[in-house]
């Protein structure tokens, strides 16, 4: 019992900002993000016997958070989907500004228009810094399947960005990223 307590406290402290960050980057509100993080850790405590050791624990938590998030979204989906659809309509009708042309706005729109599965793998790489093997553990698929999904998602995003007139390398030259 004490061992489990010590282990869970260490896990919680080591991964709290990562799990909360994972949720925050994918939730529409900070309150939803807090909910998802809280429920993820509650599940980890209830299943502490299943949590793997080392850095695999973080990947396991991402996998749980992903399920919690999907569950959470289903509950609030109807209203928020309508809002998002409305917002997307507005975005389509709004003439692009000079700022959008500079890159970020268009990149965001193109990214959002990708299938969910594509956004998921691309964001796990870019936001959580995972490689194909780690993504496989989060998604519960084979490493090869993850690699193929990632490859296809990158290809689709590159194609759509080109189609949207985003020149290659413009963001890299503007600096300001890690």
């Amino acid at each position: 019992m004490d061992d489990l307590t010590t282990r869970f406290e260490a896990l919680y402290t080591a991964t709290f900002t990562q799990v909360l960050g994972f949720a925050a980057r994918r939730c529409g509100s900070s309150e939803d993000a807090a909910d998802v993080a809280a429920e993820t850790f509650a599940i980890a405590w209830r299943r502490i016997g299943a949590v793997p050791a080392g850095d695999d624990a973080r990947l396991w938590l991402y996998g749980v958070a992903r399920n919690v998030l999907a569950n959470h979204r289903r509950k609030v989906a109807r209203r928020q989907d309508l809002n998002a659809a409305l917002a997307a309509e507005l975005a389509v009708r709004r003439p692009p500004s000079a700022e959008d042309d500079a890159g970020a706005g268009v990149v965001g729109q193109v990214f959002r228009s990708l299938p969910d599965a594509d956004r998921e793998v691309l964001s796990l790489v870019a936001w959580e810094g995972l490689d194909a093997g780690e993504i496989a553990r989060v998604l519960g698929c084979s490493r090869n399947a993850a690699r193929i999904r990632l490859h296809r998602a990158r290809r689709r995003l590159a194609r759509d960005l080109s189609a949207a007139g985003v020149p290659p390398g413009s963001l890299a030259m503007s600096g300001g990223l890690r």
Partner: protein
Amino acid sequence: MIDAADIERRVAGLARLRDEDLAGLESSAPARALLDSIMVEPPGSQTTAPSRLPERGWSVRRLALAGGVVTVMTAALVLGPIVLAGGPGVATSYANSAIEVRREGNVFVARIKDPLADHAEYVEAFGAVGKDVDIELVPVPPALVGQRLSSAGGSGAVSTDVVPTGSAPVDCAVRPAACTLVIRIPAETSGKIHFIVGRAARPGEAYWHFTGPVRPPRESGRPGR
């Protein structure tokens, strides 16, 4: 050609919040309170993969986190709304344990989570989204719950409404405690706004008395929904 590294940089640029922005939160009071609230239950020893997720304890834990982490995160998020779920044009939202305020199109929608909270918490939430709104909730008979009893300032179509908190259909006029008060304020409204709105009275609590100049309750039923 846009290569993989370029793709990664572009997608990374869409995440307005990074783990580093949250550094130190793990030892904050709300994070420790959450940890304590989780470990109140005995640890599980299940070794099966997560599949169906239990609902128990959800709202309690939300409260544990809501006071602090959410405030810190909101400060970070206001710098740049998250793109995945929020979508373009989502300006601001704010929540504390008493109220949630969210911009939905051209209106700010406020959902009262705790009608008995100090009204300073409501003021704080509206302040965070740039609105000077003070809402006073006063105990009234069930038929007046959700009605605006007094309003000063503001322009456009302000509305108040009570909707069932859960998914089950509830007659809010009969069971106001099972319902949430929702207030909608046009986003373009400026200046100071003050409302007095009816809430369900606690058992034995005296109803609020009309002591000042007030607008009579609307006769044509509750707007919105």
